[in-house]
């Protein structure tokens, strides 16, 4: 099994952490306007620290110590064999298509609730071997939106990684919002004491999307996150009536194929656009089981059979066929789509003291 290892030697870890803390404005929510950052050399000593309630704490150097949660998360996730992030710089390219399918299924059921046990929140099991945890579960209504700034989102992510009772797992797949911002930095930072297999990057063929995805690749390189490969989604469209193929999002700059060749990354596959995928996602039905004759289904099978991608087998089969093939593999998904995160109700904030 081709599993990539994230080199997290102690020195590198320390270097990365200190960089994260100085360059990435690690300031609390209620910090004064020109807060130098709790981990900086100036913490508690700068002019703007005058009058800040945390001045003493910062001056004592407590802020410079690494977040103890990083170690706790490492311990908590030690029973999870593989951890994979699903990333894309561009929104709407299909990162959550499959995750959303699950979320919808759960939402329409309406009876699933996140329980709190002595070990933390329990994830919701949709199949014997597939559980998910999403901020969406903690919402009370589909209209809920909380408008959160970075630090609050980071707190939520920390809580998800540390306080959810994952148990024994083979795979943990983390779905992320588009971009290269707070959520992404936090996940990478919080997972720094554990072994992360790498990231799968999703794109669509057009340059407008690729230009954002290149930034995401640069992000992975900067934070030393290995890239398992790239998937091109919505590559072509097969008319259900005449079966002819058209390109809705033309690969004017050569698509993911050229980008992968240029950047020396494996292209895991190209998925055609099939209206039946969107439909089954909306209705929360497993697509591969519903329309096994679709050209898209064929490509999924090619991807999952590719040697580089045993993980994808689990990713797609886990979500789409849910257990087909008799895999006794347990997966857990964390859904961290920005909006779901935002929608986490303000009322709950008090309850879980974020």
């Amino acid at each position: 099994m081709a599993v990539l290892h994230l080199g997290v030697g102690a020195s590198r870890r320390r270097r990365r952490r200190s960089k994260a803390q100085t360059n990435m404005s690690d300031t609390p929510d209620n910090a004064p306007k020109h807060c130098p950052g709790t981990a900086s050399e100036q913490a508690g000593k700068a002019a703007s620290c005058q009058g800040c309630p945390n001045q003493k704490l910062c001056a004592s150097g407590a802020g410079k110590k690494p977040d103890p949660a990083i170690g706790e998360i490492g311990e908590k996730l030690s029973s999870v064999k593989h951890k994979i992030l699903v990333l894309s710089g561009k929104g709407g390219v299909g990162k959550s298509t499959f995750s959303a399918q699950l979320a919808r299924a759960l939402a329409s059921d309406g009876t699933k609730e996140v329980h709190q046990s002595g070990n933390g929140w329990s994830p919701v099991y949709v199949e014997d071997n597939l559980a998910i945890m999403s901020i969406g579960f903690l919402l009370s209504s589909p209209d809920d939106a909380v408008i959160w700034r970075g630090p609050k989102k980071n707190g939520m992510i920390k809580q998800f990684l540390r306080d959810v009772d994952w148990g024994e797992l083979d795979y943990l797949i983390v779905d992320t919002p588009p971009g290269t911002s707070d959520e992404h930095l936090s996940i990478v930072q919080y997972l720094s004491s554990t072994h992360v297999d790498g990231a799968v990057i999703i794109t669509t063929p057009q340059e407008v999307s690729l230009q954002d995805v290149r930034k995401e690749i640069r992000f992975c390189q900067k934070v030393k996150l290995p890239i398992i490969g790239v998937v091109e989604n919505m590559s072509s469209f097969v008319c259900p009536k005449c079966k002819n193929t058209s390109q809705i999002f033309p690969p004017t700059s050569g698509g993911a194929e050229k980008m992968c060749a240029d950047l020396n990354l494996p292209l895991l596959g190209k998925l055609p656009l099939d209206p039946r995928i969107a439909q089954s996602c909306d209705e929360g039905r497993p697509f591969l089981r519903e329309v096994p004759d679709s050209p898209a289904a064929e490509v999924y099978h090619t991807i999952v059979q590719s040697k580089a991608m045993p993980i994808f087998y689990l990713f797609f089969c886990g979500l789409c066929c849910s257990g087909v093939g008799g895999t006794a593999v347990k997966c857990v998904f964390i859904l961290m789509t920005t909006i779901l995160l935002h929608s986490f109700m303000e009322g709950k904030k008090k309850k879980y003291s974020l």
Partner: protein
Amino acid sequence: MQAGAEDNYGNLALVKHVVLVLSGKGGVGKSTITTELALAFKHAGKKVGILDVDLCGPSIPRMLCVGRPDVHQCDSGWVPVYTDAQKSLALMSIGFLMEDPDEAVIWRGPKKTAMIAQLVSDVAWGELDVLLVDTPPGTSDEHLAVLENLRKHRVDGAVLVTTPQAVSTGDVRREITFCKKTGVRILGIVENMSGFVCPHCTECTNIFSKGGGEELAKLTGSVFLGSVPLDPLLSASVEEGRDFAESFPNSATFSSISSISQVLLKSLEND
């Protein structure tokens, strides 16, 4: 800080209307709709500005084919980049300020907020009929920062972009809640990628289903501005930075864009 607020007012003083383009969901076509609306306004004889605050993925420069020009400074701030000789379409984007186009902006909230404050207040827009603000998906730091800084001048309202499927309208419902909570008027909802007409057999397929935007508008009591079909010619136009209105003035896609822009313009002017 006081002086900053005045400057801010100064640079936006001659901007008549400010419209935000929002969507809870990514990749639904906010930037495409922003670009096409701006071009439609321009063809209607208006002076238009676009402020691209999608820090992690600025797309507008490519869609308007302006490349990566140097941004010049003048007494009152950064000079926006004009896409035409008549200076009727001005653009300012974070993309212009990056040295390497592939460079990732890996910033946490506070830094993004500061950058946006500067983008909002330090651009010498001059006289504009409409300033369109293209935003990243979600309801987070960027959106709050844009609102906080634009509020000092004016915000006419927001255009919400969605695709028809429930997965997308679900996210946009949350964006509507964001607008209500922050007191931003919803000027209307645009449904993008509404249906795809097969170029081989002219069969219209609703790839991402249909009618979600209109339903959402009804459900939330908002104006439905119209739907824009999924058109490979439109995606090719924005890819290559061509003016869709000039290339395909007789297409059904253009007529829907143009009708959306007229409704929007009317609602701005009657306000």
